[in-house]
């Protein structure tokens, strides 16, 4: 009998916990979107939570999802690794830049290739060069890794090289940056493109990939900081209308605290200066 009572109490406690979990916690923020921003945002959120009484949920799903979620009110702020379009601005969405990033082409570290011209990138992605021997490299079939539609990395890449989505002859379509990096790291004939921050971070942790220079400029955070890297983009938090006080406080923290600045640099991004 005694154990029964204890058991019953435990059950009641469990039910109460579950019910309590159903009502939205008053002090919590949800951020969804870009897989480029999500990893660094998750860490910033952990530091922020420790100092402020607020919970922050960070979910990755691509910039398109971030903007969609904030538009529908499903998230307090969206993460978008691109500038907003005029249509989005007209809807009343606002972008708050927290850092800058670029996009770089990556190849397997065994590939002796040192540089690609713009024409070669276009020819590769249109399937006109399907073996590395065409570039006087050891013969090996080219494996084109592309990003899935709705990803801002894809949009910026297409825009920069004057390509259309349907012109691209992809061998592998990946969602997240990490999937592109793992695919290229496992395939000596592969070429892909990802966030420079993600690529440099992976390279320094030993992934078998290498970033390629573009127009003779090496892919580094310095090149992004001084504006010479051609494939630049802002990393934004997107809100509907003016940010509320909670989001505003988070933005201030990201832009001005030394912890957030250090994390942004750790992830090989360039902190926003304003």
């Amino acid at each position, binding site marked *: 009998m005694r154990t029964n009572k204890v058991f019953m109490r435990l059950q009641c406690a469990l039910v109460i916990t579950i019910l309590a979990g159903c009502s939205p916690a008053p002090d919590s923020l949800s951020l969804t979107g870009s897989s480029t921003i999500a990893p660094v945002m998750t860490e910033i959120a952990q530091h922020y939570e420790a100092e402020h009484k607020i919970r922050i949920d960070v979910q990755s799903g691509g910039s398109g999802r971030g903007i*969609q979620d904030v538009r529908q009110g499903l998230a307090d702020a969206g993460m978008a690794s691109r500038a907003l379009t005029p249509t989005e601005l007209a809807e009343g969405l606002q972008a708050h830049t927290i850092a800058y990033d670029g996009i770089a082409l990556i190849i397997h570290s065994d590939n002796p290739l040192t540089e690609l011209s713009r024409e070669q990138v276009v020819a590769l992605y249109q399937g006109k060069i399907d073996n590395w021997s065409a570039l006087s490299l050891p013969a090996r079939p080219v*494996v084109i890794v592309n990003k899935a*539609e*709705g990803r801002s990395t894809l949009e910026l890449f297409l825009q920069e090289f004057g390509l259309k*989505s349907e012109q691209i002859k992809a*061998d592998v*379509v990946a969602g997240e940056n990490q999937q592109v990096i793992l695919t290229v790291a496992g395939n000596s*004939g592969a070429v892909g493109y990802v966030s420079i921050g993600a690529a440099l971070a992976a390279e320094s942790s030993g992934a078998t990939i290498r970033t390629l220079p573009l127009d003779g400029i090496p892919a580094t955070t310095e090149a992004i900081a001084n504006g010479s890297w051609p494939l630049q983009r802002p990393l934004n938090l997107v809100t509907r209308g003016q940010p509320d006080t909670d989001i505003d406080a988070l933005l201030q923290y990201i832009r001005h605290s030394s912890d957030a600045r250090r994390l942004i640099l750790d992830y090989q991004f360039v902190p926003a200066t304003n």
Partner: protein
Amino acid sequence: MTTSSFPQPTDRRDRLLFVLCAISTLVVVALLLLLTVSTVLKAVPALPSLTQALTETNWAPLSGQFGMLAMIVGSLTVSLLALSLAAPLALILAAWLALYSPPLLRAPLRTLYELMAGIPSVVYGLWGLILLVPLVNQLAPPGASLLSAAIVVALMILPYGVLLIDSRLQSVPLTARQAALAAGLPRFAMFRAVYWPMTRDGAVKAMVLQFGRAIGETMAVLMVAGNVVALPDSVLAPVRTLTANIALEMGYADDGHRAMLYLSGVLLLLVAMLTMALVRRNP
């Protein structure tokens, strides 16, 4: 006293248990209904283009082309190939466990299969992406392919297959086993004449159920299948499955596109229901 055919529980604790069970059942049934109804409702706007979806292979959501045939073929081929890889292997492993393995090894092996069944699918996917895809790439690039996806899914359904067939084999009555032993049958004949006839139906059902699991698998497939929307011309070509497509695109999909994704969800639900019906039909 009540006259209903179901005797009402009288004891207080009995009644509590009854209420809890009733609530749980209702919740499950309601959830399933809600899920089906809401998926179908959200797919309704896409119904006018159902024929286009089922017969065309052009999938370009941003330019309004919604042909799903290539992805339907992708889902079916990955699942069928996975099943044809996993089913014979599961049968052999289960038969070995029941008839050939040293008795001391049986319990640890069962635990091993249970552990395998508990590994999250994304771990299988990561393993596939880091080890399997480069291997298949040696065979023919790009490595991320129908074959890689089928192997990963086969590994995921294999432990369930082994455990389910194994439980069937264990339920063969002791008298039947003793009779076979007394007849002096060698083990293979014992399996063919006694075990297999008594477990065949169950084993087939177990594997058909795994087809339902295979076609629903998402994350692991997304990581190793290559996700290119095109009819595969060989097992080494990349494919995109319906589930991988939903995971890749639901994030940014706007209204019309979203309805098409829900429609592919309805198709998957139908396949799952058909699979269940197939298992339930013959006794």
